[in-house]
């Protein structure tokens, strides 16, 4: 019996050509992890663009704010228009800022992996640069002015005006930073493996949606007067659906945009948190397990499953939501077809159906049916069966193991 038990396998002992271990250095370069991070980044950008195109562009976007500020100060802001997107139309206003946000977030993520000493130096350097940029010119001109005139005096107005440029610059950058907060924090979170940053990115987006929802609430929107008009209100009553699957039109373009926002938030959240979760698990494994090919193999399994499920389940979630939202028109059709009853007529034309209530009830009905389906359709067995048909060798391999 004792001979049966072998010591833990080790990649060096088993002599694999390119030994793979679960050390973070190696795991971070693994294709599944990188893929998940890329998916999360794409989802983040997608979510941001969808939110921006639905709620921000043309109503409260940063270029409009910059324009207003420029009108107020009667001058151009020091930050270049090519950088802010001023003067462009529609979504193109956001392309350059998003790239800036990605770079900044990436830089912050990179910084997170430096030694504390380097981090401290970079932060210090940043603060010093900021201070120098802010008051450097003023101090230089003021001090040299005093030096040349041999008199102690307060800075004069021309010297003080040198503060204008840096202040405006910092203000512009701060505004841009605020607009890009989800992108910056999200990228930092994904690549810098920071849960807090991801929570910031999601939280900020949800906060924005929440505030927008409150401002769009008719009661409050009415109180805002002319400012209220700049809030993009998405009405509850809808026109005919134009997007669907299998030729069945289910939702309108606007609804689809809202679904995309919701689904992309989830893709971003699940992929980015997933990466952190798996790396954390690997990190906590003892050294011998990190080198054990068995652990490496199972980690591969788990990561592959996560990747598959990210596409499969989150895709299905999007489709299910779309169908659920469009289900009221399907239900309407069914009720309309079943003639004869006064109720059928009422329901098919009810304002509740076309308003959100019918939408929600029918969506809830659809989702309930889907949920119940799990008890009738053994998905797992079906997929397992398909898998075993496709990979018959795994089963035999398993049997060999038992015979030992």
């Amino acid at each position, binding site marked *: 019996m004792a001979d049966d038990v072998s010591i833990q396998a080790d990649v060096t002992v088993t002599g694999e050509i390119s030994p793979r271990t679960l050390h973070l250095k190696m795991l971070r370069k693994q294709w599944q992890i990188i893929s998940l991070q890329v998916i999360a980044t794409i989802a983040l950008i997608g979510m941001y663009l969808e939110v921006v195109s639905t709620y921000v562009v043309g109503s409260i976007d940063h270029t409009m704010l910059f324009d207003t500020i420029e009108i107020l100060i009667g001058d151009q802001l020091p930050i270049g228009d090519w950088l802010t997107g001023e003067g462009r139309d529609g979504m193109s206003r956001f392309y350059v800022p998003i790239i800036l946000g990605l770079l900044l977030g990436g830089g912050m993520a990179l910084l997170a992996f430096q030694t504390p000493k380097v981090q401290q130096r970079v932060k210090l350097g940043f603060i010093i640069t900021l201070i120098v940029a802010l008051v450097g010119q003023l101090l230089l001109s003021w001090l040299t002015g005093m030096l040349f005139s041999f008199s102690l005096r307060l800075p004069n107005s021309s010297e003080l005006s040198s503060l204008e440029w840096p202040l405006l610059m910092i203000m512009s950058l701060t505004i841009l930073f605020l607009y890009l907060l989800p992108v910056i924090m999200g990228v930092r979170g994904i690549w810098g493996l920071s849960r807090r940053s991801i929570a910031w990115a999601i939280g900020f987006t949800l906060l924005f949606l929440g505030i927008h929802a409150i401002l769009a609430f008719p009661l409050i929107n009415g109180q805002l007067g002319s400012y209220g008009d700049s809030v993009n209100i998405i009405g509850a009553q809808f026109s005919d659906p134009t997007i669907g699957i299998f030729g069945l039109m289910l939702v309108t373009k606007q609804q689809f945009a809202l679904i995309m926002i919701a689904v992309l938030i989830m893709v971003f959240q699940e992929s980015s948190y997933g990466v952190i979760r798996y790396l954390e698990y690997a990190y906590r494994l003892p050294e011998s397990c990190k080198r054990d090919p068995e652990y490496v193999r199972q980690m591969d399994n788990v990561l592959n499953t996560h990747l598959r499920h990210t596409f499969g389940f989150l895709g299905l979630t999007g489709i299910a939501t779309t169908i659920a*939202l469009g289900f009221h028109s399907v239900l309407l059709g069914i009720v309309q077809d079943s003639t004869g009853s006064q109720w059928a007529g009422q329901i098919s034309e009810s304002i509740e159906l076309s308003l959100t209530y019918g939408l929600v009830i029918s969506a809830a009905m659809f989702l309930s049916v889907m949920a119940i389906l799990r008890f009738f359709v053994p998905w797992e067995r079906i997929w397992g069966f398909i898998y075993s048909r496709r990979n018959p060798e795994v089963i035999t391999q398993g049997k060999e193991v038992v015979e030992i």
Partner: protein
Amino acid sequence: MWTRKASFTFTGGIALILIGMMIANLQMMILGLTFIAFIVVNSWISGHGDVEVQRTLSADNLYKGDDLYVELLVTNRSNRNTQLLEVYDNIPHEMKLRSGLNQMRLNLKPGESARIRYVLRCPLRGHFSIGPVSLRSRNTFNLGVDEMYVDHHSDIVIFPQIKEVEEAFLRSRTPKMYTGATTLRTPGQGSEFYSLREYVPGDPFKNINWKAFARTGDLMVNEKCRDAVTDLYILLDSRDIARIGTVLKNPLEMGTVSAASLAAFFLKRRDSVALAIFDDSLSYLPPDTGDKQYFKILSALAGVSPKGNMPLQAVTNSLSGRFSRGSPVFIISSCEGDGTVPAAVRDLVGRGHEVTVLSPSSIDFERLVSRIPRMSYEVLKLERQNRLTTLAGSGAMVIDWMPDMDLSQALMQVRGY
């Protein structure tokens, strides 16, 4: 079972839908619906723990402080993927993980298997059981978690350590008590020829002396000499008072180690060893020799735990009739809290036994865990010295065994007071 995340997602989804309806905000409703759709879609796959588990140990019995190699083979016998499955082998908390890990996160496809290997160190003697195997299956997004276990146990016995004591006996200043294997001229299990006798039904055939049969026509069997020089009796004190000290250093632990070591030493010399353990009752292993006896003694010692308060005299009274005349008796006891010890020892000496009292210094063990006032300690120590002196005065050999002292070192101190 839903996880906290799933519960929050669901409650959040419902809340978003309802609040969205209150303030006529479609984004909120859609976000809520997406949350719920996410839960619904994910409920289609829940994973399972329907796996076969096989645990292999490097040994079933081992000595205290030794390493145990464990291998757990987990095989998915079903036709479904297990999904994210956490496998955790429950190991007694008295055992230390030396290398590897007793758990793994895996996702086994149908028919696939995974091996979890780890090494345990067993610092305590006793009977232990590894298992059951706990399983926790989750779905990929941590929305559902189900816990179950496979009731698969592996029992192991950790024997007390065996210390080398031969040198102690060789270098002992006392007159040689035990002079080595000399044949006792009594019939029994052994190697040397003792006599011929007539066959009695039940005698093994291999003992039949065929030449004698040919010669006499009667079935005759060879009788062998008993190999043992003597029967050695070890009396181990496992009363409640023996637990004083730390987990690794207490009179009982040291007592078991010394009992095991002495038994090993004498059994190796082909002597017969008997073991009596007294706590709230008396358990007695009659004298015997050989590996089987060795195993029996170690097993008995592995399971010893402190309890009860049986006086030594009760032990000697009940056993003295069975003791072979003149055979040496080892009493391993702190001699605390038992007024009958001097009388019992005197009685044994009077019966002609060579009595050795191996007494772990209880007060010094107590000092490892309690702050004893200096003066009280000195007086307690004096009292103990008095007690040992009394025993020595009765004709026993007494060893005052300090906690930091090796067994062989202690044995060399054997002396009459």
